[in-house]
């Protein structure tokens, strides 16, 4: 069966394209590879027809600019105020996880560009295998920034090649984990990588969970050593704010490259209202 992935790009709606582009270029070192306005056949236009002709910018990590151009971010300018993306507080695409080199150095740089720190990296030792922090982008999009220095597991994960490298995990918040996962397992054609109940402090803080409360997470491996991670949010968690005819706030759409089973360039709505599409 053809597998889903890897992650081509994540789409984020923005009220100020120029400022968002500047923030990602200066903060993350991303490179702009395309700035064409949205055409009629673009995935985003299928979602929100009024976006036809909207200004966009497709940015990728510096190491990807001359290569496969995977794991980047696609900014789409929308008119009118954006609803509060409520990062890590609503169902749908909760966050895009990027591989980074040094969260401690990166955080102040991103904060200076308008990113908001949600969960700080901790200085735990001189050679931690994985260190991570959580931020909200300039448009409220959830971002997990992870420095993978050493990894032993079923995937082939390597250290970031630049200050910020590819998006390699798309994090999906759902209140029905098993149903959601079944959809992606059918799509991905790969077995699940994990299914655990763990404490996630940033979610405890964002969702108002009690100390010690655990969150069930389950991930499915897709192509290009990428993952779709499905997090079980508490029942009653609201859906992602989405004004009529517009993109969902925050990470609104995830595109997958490769032979994406069952997906087309036209976006598909997933089990919990998240939008996904195949990269053209």
């Amino acid at each position: 069966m053809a597998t889903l992935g890897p992650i081509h790009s994540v789409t984020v709606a923005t009220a100020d394209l120029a400022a968002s582009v500047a923030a990602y270029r200066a903060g993350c070192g991303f490179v702009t590879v395309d700035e064409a306005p949205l055409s009629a056949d673009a995935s985003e236009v299928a979602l929100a027809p009024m976006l036809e002709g909207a200004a966009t910018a497709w940015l990728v990590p510096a190491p990807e600019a001359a290569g496969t151009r995977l794991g980047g971010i696609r900014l789409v300018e929308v008119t009118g105020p954006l609803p509060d993306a409520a990062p890590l507080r609503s169902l749908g695409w909760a966050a895009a996880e990027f591989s980074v080199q040094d969260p401690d150095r990166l955080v102040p740089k991103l904060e200076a560009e308008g990113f908001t720190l949600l969960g700080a990296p901790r200085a735990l030792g001189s050679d931690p295998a994985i260190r991570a922090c959580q931020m909200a982008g300039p448009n409220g999009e959830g971002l997990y920034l992870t420095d993978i220095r050493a990894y032993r597991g079923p995937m082939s994960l390597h250290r970031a090649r630049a200050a910020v490298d590819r998006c390699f995990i798309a994090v999906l918040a759902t209140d029905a984990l098993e149903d959601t996962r079944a959809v992606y397992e059918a799509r991905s054609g790969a077995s699940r990588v994990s299914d655990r109940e763990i404490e996630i402090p940033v979610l405890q803080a964002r969702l108002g969970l009690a100390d010690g409360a655990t969150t069930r997470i389950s991930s499915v491996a897709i192509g290009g050593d990428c993952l779709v991670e499905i997090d079980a949010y508490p029942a009653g968690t609201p859906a992602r704010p989405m004004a009529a005819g517009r993109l969902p706030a925050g990470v609104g759409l995830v595109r997958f490259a490769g032979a994406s089973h069952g997906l087309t360039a036209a976006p598909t709505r997933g089990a919990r209202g998240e939008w996904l599409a195949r990269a053209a």
Partner: protein
Amino acid sequence: MTGGGSVLGVLAKRAGELAILLFAITTLLFFLLRLGGDPAAVLAGEEADPDQVALISARYGLDQPLWWQYLRYLVSIVTLDFGESLRGGQAALTLVLDRLGSTLLLAFLALAITAALSIPIGAWLGFRPDRGDRRAANALVFILQGIPGYIVGLLLIQLFVVELRWLTSIGNQGVSSWILPSLTLASFLVPKMVRVLAANVAEAMREDYIRTARATGASDVELLFRHALPNALLGATALIGTQFAFLMSGSLITEWIFAWPGFGALLVASVEQLDFPVVQAAVFVIAGLVFLVNAGTDILFRVIDPRVRAGATR
């Protein structure tokens, strides 16, 4: 753990702190010892007459004004001349240093036992602390922490020496005589180290980076040994440095129970006998040793952890 500053700068600062510490301790000790009684009378014995006491006093300069004795004492400290033992006549510092090796051997064995026991137990307790068996074990460790080390020593003697006759309990007579005193000394540290490690592992397992490790399929073993335990060990290593003084105090009791020929036993006997020069030399050495271990741990952290060196903590 202080932040910032080069290693050399820290060394210089610590050398200054050591000098002040040693001055303060030796001064305090000088006056405290003389509150306990007249050493000349103790040396002369209960049946000595006043002439004999005066003779001993003159011989050791104990008949001089206190301020003169103190000044002479300070000068001798600077030259590391603590005088001679009032009992045996040997150079006090030499006597102490001759015994130091035995005490350090005991301390090293105790630390090795502490590491061998506390790391696996602490890791097991901290990995899933909410499970019933972990909670029960944690309660047991908490209770054990309250049992004095000398009780442990006496129980070990009763079991392995008196009942089973497997081991010896007197002096340093080879490897078999090392086991019980080093286990006794380790009992001062193991419960505390287990609890610190367990808490550090549990905290590490609650960190946000564990989410990524779990999402990418990292196993329990991988998580514990590659992620949680290394971070937990850093905190535990710092504890060893700060607990070294505690270990030294434990060695006094342990050496006394097992007649171990270390300087702890020497110190206890010297205090009883008001052998001032030996007491002063021993306390000086202990203070210096404890300080050096703490400073060494601090400096080691700066070398190992660049974030401590850069003062970058959150």
